[in-house]
């Protein structure tokens, strides 16, 4: 018959915790603050990332497919010969269109990870205002598809995107352009394209992305109209925009699409390299600070447990004398650390949840709107994991010291 063994190590640890409530509370409070700040800062980071990528995806797709400029190659093959060759590489003059775009679009749509595909044609234009001209660009889109991809409705401040579809002469103006041209919904505006075509358009709406460069230069028109502005036929397309299911995978996925289509595929992160570098810096700083704070909390527990081991040196000697081995002693003090850690983590998670919930509903105003903080499960799990890892280590080091205590040397004192 086997007897259920009473967890005596746990009981000893529990007794030490209960008979030193104050010390336990101080140590647990350290963990609580460490965990709360860790989770809070990482939630803020997630919030920043989410709001900035949302801002990006108002005007750019996850992956853009286009034909890259080609550089001329030397005609003479100089390898292995001792003849000096003078070469002068230049951009090959060819047009930047995608050949047979319908087929390419269909091919992309058949990919399992692709969510949305829509063609786009950008035309350089001038907005004509009496005698002066303002340079800008008109982006030709399929209104319905583009609205799906960029959620254009969310930043149209006057009029309606859908009116573009019913109005071949319609134009959706950036707020900066509308202000300079002094036009509003329903007014007419004259534009001239880079190939010299002048047209009078009807303003069907105004949008505002809060990116001032975009707002001051850009207008959306029907793609068919953009082709007319370029004096081209209906298969003239320069860009295919692709949204995939998980935008975080764009960087890894773009080369696959490039190979598939034989065109250049540029993911949104590469397209905004400077901005992404700043984002990475921010992430590094926040991670560094939040982990440092956890470590400080860890030092707190370490100190307190070290003190406990010192106070309990007699007890440890007795326990060893009556047959507890080194592992039992380690278990006693590590359990003590983990119980403290558990208390600290529970309150830390609670605290962090409250902070995130409160800030999520805090209206900052301006371009930002609500405070960009984001309740992300993985941050909470990370916080809990690191919390336990730190408390385990903070308990293990003094516990190992306790395990090596020689009882005889204590009894002789």
């Amino acid at each position, binding site marked *: 018959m086997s007897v259920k063994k*009473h967890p005596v190590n746990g009981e000893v640890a529990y007794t030490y915790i209960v008979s030193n409530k104050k010390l336990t509370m101080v140590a647990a409070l350290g963990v609580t603050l460490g965990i709360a700040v860790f989770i809070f800062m990482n939630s803020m980071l997630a919030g920043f990332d989410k709001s900035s990528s949302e801002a990006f995806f108002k005007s750019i797709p996850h992956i853009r497919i286009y034909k890259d400029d080609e550089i001329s190659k030397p005609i003479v093959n100089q390898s292995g010969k001792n003849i000096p060759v003078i070469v002068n590489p230049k951009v090959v003059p060819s047009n930047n269109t995608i050949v047979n775009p319908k087929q390419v679009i269909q091919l992309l749509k058949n990919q399992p990870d692709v969510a949305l595909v829509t063609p786009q044609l950008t035309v350089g234009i001038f907005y004509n205002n009496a005698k002066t001209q303002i340079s800008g660009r008109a982006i030709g889109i399929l209104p319905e598809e583009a609205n799906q991809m960029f959620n254009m409705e969310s930043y149209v401040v006057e009029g309606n995107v859908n009116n573009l579809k019913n109005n071949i002469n319609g134009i959706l103006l950036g707020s900066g352009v509308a202000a300079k041209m002094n036009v509003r919904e329903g007014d007419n505006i004259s534009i001239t394209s880079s190939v010299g075509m002048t047209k009078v358009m009807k303003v069907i709406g105004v949008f505002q992305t809060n990116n001032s460069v975009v707002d001051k230069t850009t207008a959306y028109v029907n793609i068919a109209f953009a082709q007319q502005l370029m004096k081209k036929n209906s298969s003239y397309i320069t860009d295919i925009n692709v949204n995939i299911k998980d935008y975080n995978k764009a960087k890894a996925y773009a080369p696959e699409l490039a190979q598939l289509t034989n065109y250049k595929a540029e993911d949104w992160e590469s397209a905004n390299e400077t901005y992404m570098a700043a984002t990475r810096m921010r992430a590094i700083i926040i991670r560094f600070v939040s982990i440092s704070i956890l470590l400080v909390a860890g030092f707190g527990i370490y100190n307190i447990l070290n003190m406990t081991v010192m106070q309990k040196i007699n007890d440890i000697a007795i326990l060893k*004398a*009556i047959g*507890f081995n*080194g*592992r039992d002693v380690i278990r006693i003090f590590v359990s003590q650390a983990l119980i403290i850690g558990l208390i600290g983590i529970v309150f830390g998670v609670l605290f962090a949840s409250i902070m995130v919930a409160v800030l999520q509903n805090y209206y900052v105003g301006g371009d930002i709107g609500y405070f960009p903080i984001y309740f992300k499960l993985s941050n909470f799990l990370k916080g809990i994991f690191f919390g336990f890892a730190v408390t385990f280590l903070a308990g293990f080091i003094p516990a190992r010291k306790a395990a090596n205590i020689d*009882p005889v040397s204590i009894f*002789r004192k």
Partner: protein
Amino acid sequence: MKEIILKTESITKHFHDPVEFKVLDEISFEVYKGEFLTVIGKSGCGKSTLLYILSTMDTEFDGELFIDNQNISRWKQDKLAAIRNEKIGFVFQFHYLLGEFTCLKNVMIPALRLGKLPYDVIEEKAYQKLELLGLKDQALKPSSKLSGGQQQRVAIARALINDPLIIMGDEPTGNLDSMNTQNIFSIFKELTQEFGQTIIAVTHDQDFAKASDRTIEMQDGKIINQNYKFI
């Protein structure tokens, strides 16, 4: 011939600090199952040092130590801890209890560590041991709230809980009045005679020693007299 339960062969120990000093010198003797052995000698002659070696807590010595027919001289710490838990009960010269636990818990802990009996059986057994030592009414007090003599008796109860083969005591009655000393003496007698357990007790009490089965006398780290009246 009686069965040997503990044997030493030329145990020698040196202290190196602060000066080189031979504290035990070629100690060889045998202890028999069911024997009540006492060790006497002047203060500082090495009695406690010897007892720490016999109890397996001190492993830094030359010579051989046999317990229950096993040579444990070079065993690992973990294995020795298991031997102490199961086969040896120890009463320290200065009573040592876990202050934050009740007397009852202090007595129970070695048995809980051993884990051979269910919790409630251990608890019942611990009550019995405390009663034997006249402490049943103190069972639920924190041990730090007891008098010196009471604490020493709790320590004796703890040494008995696992029914060890050998009970070692370093002046186990040092703090007790004559009535309690008498009581413990008769408990020890009964354990040896009725249950075949072995007692090795260091004492300064001449009467206590005389009444035991055999007395080993030490001087300057050597055994100078072993009285074999027991065999």
